[in-house]
């Protein structure tokens, strides 16, 4: 059975097939046989060529979080990741830039007004979360197109805050 997953924005394919005494894993050129045991809902024990791996796994609606020997992987189904804005990311499209909240928090200051010109790295707003203030800065030169929030408003991490138009 072939699976496609998105890890760190790259599409990865893996084939997992049950066979006598375990599972056959094919990844790229390599093919190995693994003994995979479910220890508990969040724990798997893998044995490959005599090596033992302890894997922790958790799921939310969109992602699987996988922890192996100190490293964490976030594994997504392809197709899902584009449906929503991501925390703290900026969506650029035809000269427009949407600034979203970097985390859930409270807007405590807005330094700009609509139509205002902004420099690169200028602080646009301040969002407070967990008692720390976080400056929301402009990554471009341009104009404030629209402000979606007001001071005092609680925002979650995908909430658009400000739309910028980049200088041509």
């Amino acid at each position: 059975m072939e699976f496609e997953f998105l890890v760190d924005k790259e599409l990865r394919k893996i084939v997992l097939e049950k066979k006598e005494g375990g599972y056959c894993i094919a990844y790229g050129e390599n093919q190995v046989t693994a003994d995979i045991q479910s220890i508990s809902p969040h724990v798997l024990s893998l044995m490959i060529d005599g090596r033992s791996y302890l894997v922790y796994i958790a799921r939310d609606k969109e992602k699987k979080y996988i922890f192996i020997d100190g490293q964490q992987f976030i594994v997504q189904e392809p197709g899902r990741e584009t449906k929503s804005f991501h925390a703290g990311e900026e969506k650029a499209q035809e000269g427009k830039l949407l600034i979203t909240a970097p985390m859930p928090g409270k807007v405590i200051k807005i330094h700009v007004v609509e139509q205002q010109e902004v420099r690169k790295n200028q602080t646009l707003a301040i969002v407070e979360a967990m008692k720390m203030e976080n400056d929301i800065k402009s990554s471009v030169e341009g104009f404030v197109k629209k402000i979606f929030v007001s001071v005092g408003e609680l925002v979650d991490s995908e909430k658009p805050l400000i739309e910028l138009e980049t200088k041509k």
Partner: protein
Amino acid sequence: MFKKILIANRGEIAVRVIKACREMGISTVAVYSDVDRKSLHVQMADEAVPIGPAPAIESYLNMDRIIAAARATGAEAIHPGYGFLAENSDFARRLEKEKIVFIGPNSTALELVGDKVRARQTMEKAGVPIIPGMNSIPKDISEYEVAAKKLGYPVMIKASAGGGGKGMRIVCSEQELRPGLEAGRREAKSAFGDESVYLEKYIEEPRHVEFQVLADNYGNTVHLFERECSIQRRHQKIVEESPSQALDPALRAKMGETAKKVVRAAGYNNAGTVEFLLDKNKNFFFLEVNARLQVEHPVTEFCTGVDLVRQQIRIAAGEKLSFSQKDLEQRGHALECRIYAEDATKNFLPSSGKILFLKEPKGPGVRHDCGVYSGWEVPIYYDPILAKLIVWAEDRDAACDRMLAALNDYAILGISTSISFLKDVVNHPEFRAGRTNTGFIKNHFENWGEKEKSEDKLRLALAAAAFDSINSGPSGKKVVGGTQKATVSPWQTLGHWRLGEGR
């Protein structure tokens, strides 16, 4: 001894205090805001009282409600933990009036050391070395500008009422001063309910070395040696250790005696921490007194064998210190890493969300003071500290190795944490060599990113994800599957997957 204590705090420190009380046969009362009904401290206490909405100002900082909760439950004493009301002298004074014991210093001493500016004056008089800086809180911004110019940039903005990095800012030029003051004031206001800030000369790349002290109500004072807390980000400690690699026995003794002098000059009692900056030439300057239990207190507990929370409670109950300076010694080496809900790749931006899975590290010499659990939703309203990982071993190298092994065993899934970052800190050659100062993170970890993940582990992760998609755990619950490709693959000729077979 008290029969019942109210803990006016939440998270790992409330849990820590509850555990100590339970061992001492003391009943515990938790207080909680609306978002903390399912918080660990509420589950663990004997009684729990709701004290209002999520914002701290309406709950954990609300003195009336906390005092009413103590009255209603018959608690004889209140342990404030750290943060919130821990260093609020008004609160201590109100409790004194209400005949409820405040487990901390007397309100007069608290007021003195809590006013960082007045504390500086007092210590200077007592002959304790202090950092050049302002000796009063000005009304007007222009006075700050004058003072800053006199001290010479860079200067440090500090909240008069508190610590923990809240309200703290380094200012390198006059241009940055005004916005820095504004931000510092807002943070100070929101964290301590007091917006006073002052300026100090910024000492470049010092070590942060602090001494733990205990003083009973009868004038007996001891110090429990030092902690070095130079590893800071956003002016907040993230890795602490004891002993400090910078002290030799003579300097340690001298600083310890100075710490005791500070305690006596302030008329201070109960547990406290005297913070110093140590410059490159081993000159030390009094910074401030942290008039509470510190986040990093377990480091001292490991090295000295003294339970500081137990001592706090005993001192507050009027007991005498049962040991003197000569009974105390340091053994081995302890390290603490603070586990924050934050993203180290995004300038330590706090992160929130649901902890989908938590695997706590454990083992000989490993202590995990933890305020969260699998399934807990981290609220956005409070300090993002989730837990503290503390290790002890015979020597510093062994302690570092133990810390790395424990961090490697530590899985928190669903939210961002500082764990990967902390591993790289503890593993850094300069850290291993003991060459630490408060510029450490800035100097060595600017633009830090997680190391490239191994292809080998990625393959395992994908195999685990695929296994999970087909067959997700003994619970049989299917949550999310990978996309199974519809196109023809060489495997499809081998026949279809048979679900759940042979398990």
